[in-house]
């Protein structure tokens, strides 16, 4: 029963994928959309069942299908593990997945390849479930690669635009770099523990299995590189902003709410190993903090509505890594969840705006939309308040926990995180003001078509906005349901912050910081009514930020160009030499053959002479030389 239900949970989206791929065109637009949505809804229902069961019994459900690989002292099972952590993840993957599928029915309605879109989305959900449910690192790796593939397919969904294809390739290649690290990490762990099952490794550690700390450190670092690729951390973050080339529901589902949190999932899953390597945790914390600051500063000046959200995602992911690096896995998970709610809502809201404006993404050509798009505006406002960290919205609790933990461990990281938060408040309100306030700055034609989006689009927005509003309730400071719930999968008990004066002061600072950010945005874009200048007029620091610190250009100069140079060297020099050699041998053989064929002249006498000479020389060799 449990096995069947778990398999249903896993394979419902896959069935949706198969049907949509093979019969989607025949089914018609609405049917393929509804089918895709239903497939994920089934998964969500199954997840809900398991979630409630595991929450009550506190016993994880293990599903062992078969033995996959068996080597001398190393076995890999094809098995799944539905414990507290994976079910929590599945809850929001399938839950938000369902909402976004629903949204896409309306959003993608005019696209000629709608069935393909739903097929890919279903496939993505399938792989994400595989990633989360697997009971060992190899199954996680299957899902890990699969979601990367789906991400590639969906970023390049509008494949007729070359720059979108380039963005898709960039995402794929960047992810491959991380994946290599992940794979090496798995190999080292397999070598160290003779197993890649989470439970096995845990048991072995508990039984005092001798582990080489150096190798373990290297393995953890490699896994972290994998997480960097998937979760867009420095230095592998540049693909995520470009990934916005995909349709907006994709950005919401894959590049904000679920796939990019895979790295955080993996580190949380292996928290009992990461705890043993404090040096690596230190690196994670620093990388996370720096990423959050850098990405937030780039987000300050972007004018593309989705680019702002993309950099905000990178920045928030950075904060989650900061929490991971400080050993506060529960808090990172908490922020993953609240972030999934409000960021999905923000992306879907921006999609609603883009949909109304027929593909316009530049905020300089928006404005005044709050009058016509009331529901979009209100949900967007709630999510913006949540991401800015104002109480009582969900983002306040999770972000505040992160900053509080940072304050207790390392003041510098706290300052960096707080700065990033202030910037977040600023650019999010800048986005809000530019999009929804003042007067509309687009063309007259667009102005006539302004309208609120249909209910299939607004319903997910409302649900997500409610979740973004109340989501913080799962882990209130002092009485955290989440910490208790996750306690069985954590190696170390969660730190409890006593709500003393320091903590209230920190909350005050965080809220004041957010208000400062909002205030600056208000003064700039509402009081003075500024509109960001055209690209050519951007100067100074803003220009550096606008061009994303020229990181793409630097990567091009130091990595891409040399690789091209090596490529052209091999093409123009090595290949020419090698093919010259090969063709030369061929030509020599032809020449020899052409000369040799004149010997066959048809004169029997000549043949006989040669024959006799041959026999004579053989005899001579046998009798005289030997």
């Amino acid at each position, binding site marked *: 029963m449990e096995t069947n239900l778990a398999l249903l949970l896993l394979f419902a989206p896959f069935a949706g994928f198969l049907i949509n791929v093979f019969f989607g065109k025949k089914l018609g637009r609405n049917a393929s959309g509804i089918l895709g949505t239903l497939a994920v809804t089934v998964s969500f229902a199954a997840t809900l069942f398991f979630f409630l069961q595991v929450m009550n019994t506190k016993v994880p459900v293990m599903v062992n299908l078969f033995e996959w690989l068996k080597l001398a002292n190393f076995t890999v099972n094809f098995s799944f593990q539905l414990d507290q952590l994976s079910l929590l993840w599945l809850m929001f993957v399938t839950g938000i997945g369902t909402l976004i599928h629903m949204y896409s029915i309306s959003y993608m309605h005019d696209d000629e390849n709608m069935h393909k879109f739903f097929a890919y989305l279903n496939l993505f959900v399938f792989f994400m479930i595989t990633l989360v449910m697997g009971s060992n690192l190899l199954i996680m790796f299957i899902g890990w690669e699969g979601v990367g593939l789906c991400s590639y397919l969906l970023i390049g969904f509008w494949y007729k635009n070359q720059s979108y294809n380039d963005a898709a390739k960039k995402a794929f290649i960047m992810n491959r770099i991380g994946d290599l690290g992940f794979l090496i990490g798995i190999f080292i762990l397999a070598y160290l523990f003779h197993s890649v099952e989470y439970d096995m490794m845990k048991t072995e550690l508990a039984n005092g299995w001798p582990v080489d700390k150096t190798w373990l450190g290297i393995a953890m670092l490699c896994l972290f590189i994998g997480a960097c690729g998937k979760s867009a951390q420095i230095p592998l973050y540049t693909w995520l902003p470009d990934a916005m080339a995909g349709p907006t529901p994709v950005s919401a589902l894959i590049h904000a709410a679920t796939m990019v949190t895979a790295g955080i999932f993996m580190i949380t899953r292996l928290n009992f190993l990461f705890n043993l390597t404090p040096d690596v945790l230190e690196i994670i914390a620093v990388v996370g903090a720096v990423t959050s600051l850098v990405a937030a500063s780039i987000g300050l000046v972007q004018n593309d509505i989705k680019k702002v959200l993309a950099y905000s995602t990178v920045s928030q992911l950075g904060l989650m890594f900061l929490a991971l690096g400080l050993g506060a896995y529960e808090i990172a998970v908490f922020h993953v969840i609240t972030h999934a709610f409000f960021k999905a809502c923000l992306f879907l809201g921006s999609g609603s705006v883009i949909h109304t404006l027929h593909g316009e993404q530049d905020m300089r050509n928006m404005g005044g939309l709050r009058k016509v798009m009331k529901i979009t505006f209100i949900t967007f406002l709630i999510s913006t308040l949540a991401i800015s960290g104002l109480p009582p919205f969900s983002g306040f609790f999770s972000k505040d926990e992160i900053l509080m933990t940072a304050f207790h461990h390392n003041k510098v990281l706290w300052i960096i995180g707080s700065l990033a938060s202030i910037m977040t408040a600023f650019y999010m309100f800048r986005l809000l003001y530019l999009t929804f306030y003042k007067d509309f700055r687009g063309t007259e034609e667009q102005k006539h078509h302004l309208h609120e989006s249909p209910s299939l689009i607004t319903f997910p927005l409302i649900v997500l906005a409610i979740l973004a509003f109340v989501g913080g309730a799962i882990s209130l400071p002092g009485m955290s349901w989440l910490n208790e719930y996750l306690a069985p999968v954590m190696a170390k008990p969660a730190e409890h912050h006593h709500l003393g004066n320091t903590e209230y002061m920190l909350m005050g600072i965080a809220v004041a910081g957010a208000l400062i950010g909002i205030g600056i945005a208000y003064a700039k874009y509402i009081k003075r009514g500024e509109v960001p200048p055209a690209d050519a007029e951007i100067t100074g620091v803003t220009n550096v930020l606008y061009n994303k610190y020229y990181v793409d250009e630097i990567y091009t100069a130091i990595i891409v160009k040399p690789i091209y140079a090596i490529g052209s060297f091999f093409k123009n020099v090595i290949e020419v030499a090698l093919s010259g050699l090969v063709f030369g041998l061929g030509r020599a053989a032809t020449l020899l053959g052409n000369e040799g064929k004149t010997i*066959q*002249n*048809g*004169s*029997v*006498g000549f043949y*006989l*002479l040669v024959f*006799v000479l041959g026999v004579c020389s053989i005899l001579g060799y046998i009798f005289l030389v030997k």
Partner: protein
Amino acid sequence: MENILQQVGIDNYIYLSTLLFCVGIFGVLYRRNAIVMFMSIEIMLNAVNLLLVAFSTYHQDAAGQVFVFFSMAVAAAEVAVGLAILVAVYRNHNGIDIDNLKKLKG
């Protein structure tokens, strides 16, 4: 039997058959007439036969002589086939000069 070998000596048989063989070779190499070449080949064959018989006697082993019978039978068959080919060649080319057969190289 033994006294024949004692009278003539095995080496003389070897010399004779070598000589016959060389005559055959030179006949094949120098003559253009197919029938003469054919005869030369037969000479070579018989040189070998002679050698076989001589050694068979020398070793007191009848197997060599049995071989000779076989080889003569095969040679007879070969001659029949060869001469038939020559007749066919003669009919086509009005001659049996070996140089006429250059076309056979294809």
